[in-house]
C-alpha cells in the first residue's frame, strides 16, 4: 500500500550551501550583495511556487528484485544489487516539487530575467534533493520499529540512473508505485514530468557498507554523496 506524504515548502527549503554548489560556487565564497539578493529572492519564489508531495511504499525483497532488475540493463555489480537482499526494510518512493516552479523558471528565462531564473533553478534542484531527505527522515521516524532503530542500522538511498541502477528501472518502479497519484508522469524516454522530480529506493540495513572502490560506479563517482549522506543521517537523523 502506498502512502502519500504532503510537505510544505518550508519543510524542504534547501540549505544555502546546496544552492551554491548547484551554481558551481564553492562554499565560503564571498558573494556580491546582488547575488545575495538573488538568493533571497529565489528562496522567496521557491517558497511560493513549490508544492512538494511524495508517494512511498514498502516492498518485500522479492518484489524489489523484480523492480531492481528492471529491463535487464543494470551494471553487473552494483552496491544496491549486493545490498538489497539483506535489507531489513526497502521503500520505493517518488516525489515532485510540482510543475509551477518549473514553469516559473522557464518564464523567467523567457522574460530575460536570466540571473533569477538560474538561481531559482539551482534552488529548485536543491529543494528536490531536500525533499528526498525529508521522505527518508519521515520513513525513519514513522515506520522503523524502535527495536530496529536500537541496532543503529544504516540507511541508504538509491535512484534509477545512479550507482549502476539503470534509468530504465523507472518503468517497473512506476508500475509498482503509481506516482501518477501525485501528478508525476513517466515519458517514454524514462524522464519524469514535472522536471523537478525524483524517484528511488530507501534501503535500511544492518549490514554496513562503505563501498570503498570495489564497484566501477563508485570509482567513477565524483560526489560520493551516499557516504556523506550516511554520515549526516547518523549524526542528525539516525
Amino acid at each position, binding site marked *: 500500500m502506498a502512502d502519500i506524504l504532503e510537505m510544505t515548502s518550508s519543510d524542504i527549503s534547501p540549505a544555502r550551501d546546496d544552492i551554491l554548489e548547484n*551554481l*558551481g*560556487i564553492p562554499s565560503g*565564497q564571498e558573494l*556580491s550583495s*546582488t*547575488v545575495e539578493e*538573488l538568493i533571497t529572492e529565489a528562496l522567496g519564489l521557491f517558497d511560493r511556487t513549490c508544492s512538494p508531495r511524495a508517494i512511498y511504499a514498502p516492498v518485500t525483497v522479492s518484489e524489489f528484485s523484480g523492480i531492481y532488475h528492471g529491463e535487464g540493463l543494470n551494471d553487473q555489480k552494483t552496491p544496491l544489487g549486493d545490498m538489497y537482499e539483506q535489507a531489513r526494510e526497502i521503500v520505493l518512493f517518488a516525489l515532485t516539487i510540482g510543475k509551477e516552479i518549473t514553469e516559473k*523558471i*522557464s518564464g523567467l*528565462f523567457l522574460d*530575460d*530575467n*536570466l*540571473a533569477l*531564473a*538560474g*538561481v531559482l*533553478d*539551482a534552488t529548485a534542484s536543491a529543494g528536490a534533493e531536500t525533499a528526498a531527505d525529508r521522505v527518508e527522515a519521515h520513513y525513519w521516524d514513522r515506520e522503523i520499529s524502535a527495536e530496529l532503530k536500537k541496532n543503529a542500522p544504516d540507511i541508504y538511498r538509491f535512484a534509477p*540512473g545512479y550507482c549502476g541502477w539503470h*534509468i*530504465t528501472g523507472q518503468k517497473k518502479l512506476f508500475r509498482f508505485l503509481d506516482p501518477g497519484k501525485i501528478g508525476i508522469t513517466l*515519458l*517514454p*524516454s*524514462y*524522464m519524469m*514530468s514535472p*522536471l523537478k522530480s525524483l524517484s528511488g529506493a530507501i534501503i535500511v540495513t544492518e549490514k554496513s557498507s562503505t563501498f570503498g572502490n570495489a564497484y566501477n560506479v563508485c570509482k567513477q563517482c565524483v560526489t560520493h554523496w551516499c557516504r556523506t549522506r550516511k554520515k549526516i543521517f547518523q549524526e542528525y537523523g539516525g
Partner: protein
Amino acid sequence: MEILDRISEMLQRGDTGKVSALVKESLTENIPAKQVLDGGLIRGMQVIGEQYRLHEIFLPDVLLAAKAMYAGMDILKPSFIKEGMPSLGKVVIGTVQGDLHDIGKNLVGIMLKGAGFEVIDLGNNVAPESFVETARKERASVIGMSALLTTTMPVMAQVVELLKAQRLVGTIKTIIGGAPVTKEYAQEIGADAYSFDSADAVETVKALVKPA
C-alpha cells in the same frame, strides 16, 4: 572610445540600468550602432566569458551580465532595422525529444548570443525534424543539441542522419553537449563537434562557422 569602455565595464558589473543609459547616450553621440555592439557589449561579454572559464566569476555574475547585454541589444535593434542585427551566424538550439532539462541549453544559448550569434531556441523536447526544418528555413549554419539523459542521446544521431539524408551535412554543422554526452559519442554519431560547457561551446561554434 571612453563611452564604449564604460559600457563594457558596466556590463561586466551586470548593471542593466547603466548599460542601457550608456548605449542610448552613445547613439545620441552618433557612434555607429555596430561599433557600440562590438566595442561595448560583445567586448564586455568576452571578458565575462573568459573570467567564467577561469572560474574567477560564477554563473549568477554571467547571467547578470547577459541580462545587461540583452537590454543594450534591445536599444540597438532599431538601428539595424534595414540590414538586420549583425551576427556571427545563426544557431538553432534545443534540448532533444524526450528530454525536459533546459538549463544547460539555456546557458549555451545565452553565451552564444553574448558572443554575437543569432540564436533560435526551440526549447526542450524538440523532434529531430523540427531541428532540421528550422535550420533549413532559417538558413542557420549550426544546430546545437543538448541532452541530459543517456536515453535521449540517440535523438542527436537521428538529427545527424536526417541532415545526411537531405544532403545538408557540411552546410549545417552540428554541435552536441549535456552531462552524459562525450566527445567520443559525437564522433560515433558523426556530429561535427562536442562541447563540455557553455564557454567552450562559444569557441567551438566560432570554429565551426569559420570559413575553411
